[in-house]
């Protein structure tokens, strides 16, 4: 069967790509658009390493088909910083040493940003439950949670 032609917006840029029916959005981002910031940890929606925003909603891109991205606006880790200036979450992850291997980091950052857009002042428990869909095997989450709390405070101007 012929491939599908998909037009979408990724990190503000208009993109077009061809994809097979069964290719996931994650496959399309990584293999067709060379945006490898979103990672595949499981392809079953259990690890969150592939987290992206689709029309303002946090999703696991391994659970979305590439064709479903048609006409949608997608935001990935590659669009998080503002030019040379890191997003406060990125900066705080670095300052708090909230990453060891860093494979989970893009997913945590995208998910944390989605949280702070909804809840600028979350409690530790709220952060832990919001991020419960993102697995990290290295850090024990302690420094990740602290980084998010600190970034939230900075973003609130506190």
């Amino acid at each position, binding site marked *: 069967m012929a491939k599908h032609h998909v037009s979408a917006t990724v990190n503000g840029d208009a993109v077009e790509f061809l994809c097979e029916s069964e290719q996931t959005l994650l496959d399309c981002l990584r293999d067709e658009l060379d945006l490898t910031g979103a990672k595949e940890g499981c392809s079953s929606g259990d690890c969150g390493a592939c987290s992206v925003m689709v029309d303002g909603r946090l999703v696991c891109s391994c659970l979305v088909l590439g064709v479903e991205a048609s006409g949608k606006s997608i935001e990935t*880790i590659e669009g998080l910083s503002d030019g040379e200036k890191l997003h406060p979450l990125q900066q705080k992850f670095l300052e*708090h040493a909230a990453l060891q*291997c860093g494979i989970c980091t893009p997913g945590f950052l995208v998910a944390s940003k989605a949280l702070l857009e909804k809840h600028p002042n979350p409690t530790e428990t709220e952060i*832990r439950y919001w991020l*419960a869909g993102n697995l990290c095997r290295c850090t024990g*989450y302690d420094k990740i949670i602290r980084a998010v709390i600190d970034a939230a405070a900075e973003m609130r101007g506190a």
Partner: protein
Amino acid sequence: MQERVKKDPEREFRVVGTRPIRPDGADKVTGRAKFGADFKMAGQLVGKVLRSPHAHARIKGIDVSKAAVLPGVKAIVTRDDFKDQGSEFVPAGEMLVNYRDVVRNVLAREKALFEGHPIAAVAATSEKIAREALRLIKVDYEVLPHVLDAVEAMKPDAPVLHEDMITAGVTPPPTKASNVAKRIEFVMGDIQKGFKDADVIVEREFNTKPVHQGYIEPHAVVASVSEDGSAEVWVTTQGHWIVRAHCARLLGWDISKIRVTASEIGGGFGGKTVVYLEPLALALSKKARKPVKMVMNREEVFRASGPTSGANIWVKIGAKKDGRIVAGEAILKYQAGAFQGSPVQPGCMCAFAPYDLENVKVVGYDVVTNRPKVAAYRAPGGPISEYAVESVVDEIAEQLGLDPIEMRLKNAAKEGTKAAYGPKFGPIGLVEGLEAAKGSPHWNAPLGKNQGRGIAAGFWFNIGGETTVSLQLNEDGTLSLMAGTPDVGGLRASLSMMAAEELGVDVAKVRPIIADTSSLGYNFLTGGSRSTFSSGMATVEAARAMIKEACVRASKLWEIPLDAVTWEDGKVRPAGDNAGKHEAMDLGDIAKIAGKTGGPIVGYSAITAHGAAPSFGVHIADAEVDPETGKTTITRYTVIQDAGKAVHPAYVEGQFQGGAAQGIGWALNEEYIYDDNGRLENPGFLDYRMPVASDLPMIDTIIVEVPNPRHPYGVRGVGETPIVPPMAAIAAAVKRASGVRFFELPMSPPKILAGMKAVKANGGAKATT
């Protein structure tokens, strides 16, 4: 809460001990860092593996004829493409490898020995075609009875995996093949006499399940073999020199032909110290004459890589009324998976290591079973045996009415203690750790309803090994640092800090990279908690070599003798009679005169790092057990551990916290579940339940610093010890919270509920399994 307890007030550091932002950080928070699966080459093919659906089966034939003619299929490899290897153990650092087994683990030969065992591999122009090709390969299996459990596998009538396996370490050698690869024994003193002197003896049997390392990044490799036979490999690994050695051996190629580059690595924990896909990708690429990329999916990771052993452990300890242990005995039976080589030996050596004992006997059995061959997992073997020993120590303390910290202080190993496995300890920080635990806010905090508190100690050896580091002084005075131990969690940060410390430069002036196997001398892998220790030692030596050379150059320029030149505060200075006669020069000045005083300046260190020192840890866990559901929640947790010297304390804390979290998963949730046919039923993150953020509390840390006298900065490895104490600490906490002592991991809700019911029915605090 993060604290530090220091024992070495003399030495003042400028950079070491601070918390700069890691040099590879920006790429990792922006999605630019290239991990295993992120690399691609023009024209690459997709490689896929056909795996055995059976736990144990003879392979009578493999017919690839249909797959081979499928359009888009460019190469297929089976057992016929790999020469058999004789049985010969070759040292590979911490573990021995037997290439007879490595070649069979990569592709099954006579038999499939576990569900997921690779049978064939295909390279095709697309993923879809590769998958279709796998479907077209016909394998003729004769299914055999299988065995999964070590105790079952040791029975005389158990199905035998390897018809030629004769148990080693038994005299006279058995005449019949069995699943027991090896028996080992460590004996010290006289345990019979010890037990006779004891006032109290506790004897228990424990069972643990295999658990997976659980790295979030699956195995991935790109291999490209060119027409002249030279090969490039790009791979996620803890040791690219090891990948090179194994691939060269299995393929019969010269080592110099293979150049391996380590990608960023998305977690390993020991699981990425072996080869799975790499030899297949190379063989496929050679046949297809194109680059081949292979990536495992999560199911394949669970079915065919890792895990660590499940085990059966029996422990008997005798003590005097005052808590002094007079005898310790243990029998350990570890599953090795399909091929021999479980970590039972280190398990035996660790079992009683935290204690200063006169009478010890430990016997271990390495048992093959129809499961994936175990791989190293953080302190391989230690967590299992120490879980059992520490649990019995806790029970004895309880029986004697002693505080569990006091009981351990009474027996704690210290400088000069002779460990049961042989050596005498140098300066170690166990007593300091126990004292820090005793004085910690956590130990002294009140507990809530249904909560209990447990404590346990843990030990890991740590290793050194072959290491090369090259430090180049660039024309502008900045420095390029090449190391060869893959950076799993902040290594580049700590190496650049050590170089900066030694050279008196700003840490931002040192740019560290992990070099490929053709650009730097040999490096053993990242494992055994060796990377900061060994590569750090080599970095300091390389920096010192550079300083020496800087002095030579200055003496040439100033035309004064070398001994009239000194290095002080990051500068070369004229000394003695010449003091003050010339302007002191920093490395930037030296860089400018390098060309005319003898050429480029490189500090180089190629060493076998000796003097790795063990690290002891003490963990405190609070558990809350829900009496309705049996669910255990860890409500508070503190890790106390000797780091020798914490180079970058944030990443030391990270190791403590991450190891504790893995241990919490091991204690409460994680296990492999097999059906009656020996097929894994939970090969995914939904059903193999690793801790998520909402499962855990903050994890407090106390870094103890008892310097390692054999490292220039006092560093000890810290990465592995943190996974040793959690299981026993949590079991002790669960006992106090629920009234039930459990002797089996994981302590999952149904087991806890059943245990609590049984105790209620018995009307007392009877132990259960």
